[in-house]
Structures are given as structure tokens and as C-alpha cells.
């Protein structure tokens, strides 16, 4: 752990461990205000929502800030080939080699295709991209992605947009234990307590969109997430006491041995 506890991914250093998204907000103004309140420094944008031919694209304009890095995502692609094409288009249009790799051929639950994701990740790393893959909380897949050179892994906590929290906690713990690259819990985080829990488990960051965008007060909710992520991280660094699995008998069972 570095002293300031910053998060390093590829060539970038982040003070904030809360990453955010741009979908589902009631207006660009609300979105911009919420993202500012979250203090997030990495904000994901669906390339399919951006008018790449228009430099004045309203959504992009409204989040243009020196401290905010754009993270284009490949949402909408169905296989590795389309994902690679989308990443290249994003690199050209948004002038960044960072890409959030999302391949969900299933438009209903938007669950990531592990096979196509691994294929695309390998190719994109070779093409010089910083690849942030959205995947199932599958520890073996995470290691395989690390092996092909992704700079982090983004396992899901629950199906995207469900706000169900860390349904995959047992697997996330294994991933965090084994990973040599940052682990960012993406999808399913529905409340600040879920985010804090992910950070307590040792996640390096979380990505939150729906829970902020569709709350009654997105700006306040963004602040709440910011605080929760900070609290969870602080608790992780301070080392949580272990949870006692068994009651301790007041008269020790083995005292007769003394």
C-alpha cells in the first residue's frame, strides 16, 4: 500500500476509488452534478450513446472536467470481433486507449460472455489498449484475463442494474485474494452499504451507475457513495476484526487440561 493509498491502473493514479457511469440520468445537468459530487475520476460512457461525429455531443460536453477521465465502453457488441471494432472506434473518437470491455450477447440480463471477452481482451492488449473487462465473478477467468495482460478485472456483484448487492461475495473474496491486478466490483451495487462492503472485502474500487442515476436525489446519493467507498477502504486498511464464528463458552471446554 502506498502511503497516500492511491489506486494505480496502468499509467493513471486515482485518488477516488469510486468509478461512475453516465446512463439512466434524468438530464445531462443532473448527471454532471452527480458525477462532480461523487468526486469520481473515471467515468464510463457507452460509445453507442455518443454521437462520434459531433464534437459538441451534449453528454460529453457536460462531463468535461480536468480531473475526469473518460472510459468508453463497448456496450451493444455481441462478440469479440465487434468489441475490437468498437474499441478502435472509441480510441479514435474519444482519444483514449482505455476501454471498458463489455460483451453481452444476451440483451435481457446483459450478462458478459466469458469466452468472447477473453478473446477480445487478448487482442486488445496486443493492440495497445488498457483493458478493463466486465466479467462474471469467476476466479479462474480473472486469472486468465490477468495472464493475457488486462490491467484490472471487473467482476460483477449481481446482474447489472438490479441493485441486489454482492450476491457473488464468496467468489469476489477469492478473486481479491488471488489477483495481481486491481479488482473493481462492477454491477449490482445498489446502496452505499454494498459499496462499503465491497471495499471492506478488499476490492480496489467499485463502479456504480444505476443506484446513483435513478435515486430520488442523484447528487446526494453520489456523495453518499463517495463517503461509503472511503469508509469501506479505510476499514479495510485498518484491518477489520475477525467475525467470531462460534460462541466462546464462559467456562472453557478445555480448562481441565490446565
Amino acid at each position, binding site marked *: 500500500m502506498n502511503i497516500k493509498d492511491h489506486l494505480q491502473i496502468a499509467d493513471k493514479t486515482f485518488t477516488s476509488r469510486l468509478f461512475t457511469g453516465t*446512463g*439512466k*440520468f*434524468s*438530464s*445531462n445537468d443532473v448527471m454532471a452534478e452527480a458525477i462532480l459530487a461523487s468526486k469520481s475520476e473515471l467515468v464510463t460512457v*457507452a*460509445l*453507442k*450513446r*455518443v*454521437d*462520434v461525429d459531433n464534437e459538441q455531443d451534449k453528454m460529453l460536453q457536460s462531463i468535461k472536467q480536468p480531473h475526469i477521465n473518460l472510459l468508453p465502453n*463497448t456496450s*451493444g*457488441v*455481441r462478440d469479440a*470481433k*465487434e*468489441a475490437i*471494432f*468498437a474499441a478502435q*472506434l472509441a480510441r479514435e473518437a474519444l482519444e483514449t486507449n482505455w476501454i471498458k470491455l463489455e460483451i453481452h*450477447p*444476451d*440483451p*435481457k*440480463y446483459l450478462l458478459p460472455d466469458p469466452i468472447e471477452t477473453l478473446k477480445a481482451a487478448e487482442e486488445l492488449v496486443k493492440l495497445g489498449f488498457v483493458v478493463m473487462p466486465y466479467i462474471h465473478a469467476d476466479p479462474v477467468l480473472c486469472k486468465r484475463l490477468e495472464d493475457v495482460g488486462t490491467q484490472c478485472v471487473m467482476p460483477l456483484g449481481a446482474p447489472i*442494474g*438490479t*441493485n441486489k448487492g454482492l450476491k457473488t461475495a464468496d467468489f469476489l473474496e477469492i478473486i481479491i485474494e488471488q489477483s495481481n491486478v486491481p479488482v473493481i466490483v462492477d454491477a449490482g451495487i445498489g446502496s452505499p452499504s454494498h459499496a462499503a462492503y465491497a471495499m471492506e472485502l478488499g476490492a480496489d474500487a467499485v463502479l456504480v451507475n*444505476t443506484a446513483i*442515476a*435513478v435515486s430520488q436525489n442523484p447528487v446526494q446519493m453520489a456523495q453518499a457513495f463517495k463517503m461509503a467507498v472511503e469508509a469501506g477502504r479505510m476499514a479495510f486498511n485498518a484491518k477489520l476484526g475477525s467475525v467470531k464464528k462460534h460462541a466462546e463458552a464462559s467456562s472453557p471446554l478445555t480448562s481441565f487440561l490446565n
Partner: protein
Amino acid sequence: MMNHTFQDVFDTYNWDETLASIQNKTAQDVEHALGKSKRDLEDFKALLSPAAQPYLEQMAGLSQAATKKRFGNTIQMYAPMYLSNECQNICTYCGFSMTNKIPRRTLNDEEILKEVAFLKAKGFDHILLVTGEANRTVGVSYLKNAIKLIKQHFSNVTIEVQPLDQEEYELLIEEGLYAVLVYQETYHRDEYKKHHPKGKKSNFNYRLDTADRLGKAGIHKIGIGALFGLEDWRADAFFTALHLRYLEKKYWKTKYSISFPRLRPFSGGLEPKVEMTDKDLVQTICAFRLLDEDVELSLSTRESEVFRNNIVHLGITSMSSESKTNPGGYTVDPQTLEQFETSDERSTEQVTDMLKTNGLEPVWKDWESFS
């Protein structure tokens, strides 16, 4: 399994028994359905039933919450563009029906581009191309050319045209086609025959299996629905849902949308056999949302201003505005007869202002072709 189509599933159902089982659902069935987090087709029947009417407010609340969770505070905007009113079908309810003595017109390239320019200036980026059924003049090669032309200007192209063969869909998909809307009109076989006595459209089975052909062709999105009012709307809504469930399981990489066109009395056209009231329509929309949290639900300008202003929060995810339902209706030939009378005639700006006032962001672009 591969040659198995929806018709095989559909043929195991009986219309009258299905309708009776919907009518017989009780308040207890409705409460059971409302209490579940994942609902099945029996729950859907309960939510469509007369027994669910007293629960409409509760259904609306659940529908609103589910829609917001999945789609956020947004409404996808699209515009229809009629390419042709030539038609060799007789459909008893349609202004373009073959026997109607109206001037027929099919837009040429230049006219298409004029209409395109108009819609682009309004902000639209998702377009729905509509034709009648005239396979010689408005067949696959006409459609292919139109898509090629329009694709350069719109991110997302959908068609609502005559049903085609799988290979023909494959050609159009290659050209950049994103989605196809094809409504069964009614799932009642005999009534269907009455309303479509002549033309290729009179073939109920060919139409019924269109979505299968589209799924096999690998289309991104399929829109289905019924023209409510031709028959009992509850049964037609049920069969639409049955169709949806079948398709979702079989063609799992495809997205689906449901539309809710209804025949209105006093529109000068065919009187509905079974009237679907505003309340019934709200019940149907909410029931679909409670059955399926992810399906897109679309509402056109057929519906009134007041209805549209109020339904935007209750489950609908995409909307058109300022629509013209005649070929060239925007710029080329605004005076010709429309396919049906639109009800919400507000400008696109007025509609998007209404959305913003309701805390909803109109989304213009939500697609990029990566293949």
C-alpha cells in the same frame, strides 16, 4: 428443435379456453402475482384479468419502479417514415388497404433524402421505415436501397414492412438493418382471416412465424404486438406475451419490444369489436412490465396528448413524435391520406419539453453499428 417454430407452441392453445382462464382469475391470484419478483404467464393472466382492475394503482407503482430501475429516467425517441402506401393486401382497418381509392406513391431516392433531412433536423437518430405490401415495386431490392441510403444518416434503422423470408432478412441486416417490427394484428385465427381476406397477408401462419425467421437471421431486435380491438384485447395480449416468452428463450441474443396500437372508436374507420379503454391499456402496459422487466415498451402518436403525458412514467420506454403516416408526409407530399389518424400532434420540441418537465431525458442515439 431447429425447425420448431412458434406455430408449434401456439397450436397447443385454444383461444376460448385461454380467454376463460384469464376471466376466471381471482383477487387472490392477482395478489399472488403482485407479491412475486419473477412472474410467469399465469401471473400475467392474473394481471390482465378483470380481477386485477382494483389493483391498478399498485400495478402502476411496481411497473414504474421496475422500468426506472432498468431503463432509468430516459425515453428513447424515434420517428416513423413512410416510404410507400402501395399495397396488395386488404386489411379492413387500414387506410392503405388495396380497395381504398387513394393516390398511391412510393418515394424515390431524392424524396427519401428530403424526408431524411427534415427528420434529422428535428434531432431524430432512430428511424422506423414503413411500407405496405407491394412486392414487385417495394420488394427487397427497394428496401435494400432505402436502408443503404438512410443508414448514412441515422444510427438506428428499423423497418415495419411485409414479412420476408429468412434469406431476405439476412440481406437487409447486412445492409445495416437493426430491427423489424411485425405485428400479428390478432392471434385469433378466424378473426384474422376476416380482417385480411386478400393478399399475401391473409396467410396467418406465414406472419406468425416471421419472428422465427428474423431470429434465425440474427436480427438485433424484433418488435411484436397486436392491434388491440380486433378481438378480445386480453387474449391478444396473452398470446403476444406467449410469443415474447418463446422468442426470448429461443433467440436469446435478440432484443424485443412490444407496441400497443389500438383501434379507437369514432376514428372514421373500423369500429373495434372489443373496445380497449384507456384504463385497459394502462393495465396491459403495466402487466407487460411486471412480466418482463427488460422488454422495451413503445407508444406511438396514435395515443392522445393527455394519455402520453401520463403514461411516460408507467412503463413505456420509447416514443415517437410529430409523426406523419403517409409517404412523403413530412416534406414531399404532406397533403395525402394518412394510414391512420394520429392523435398527439404536438411538435417534437413540445414532446421533449414535456418529457423534461417530467424528469425524463429524451435519448436520441443509443446504437452504433460495430460489425
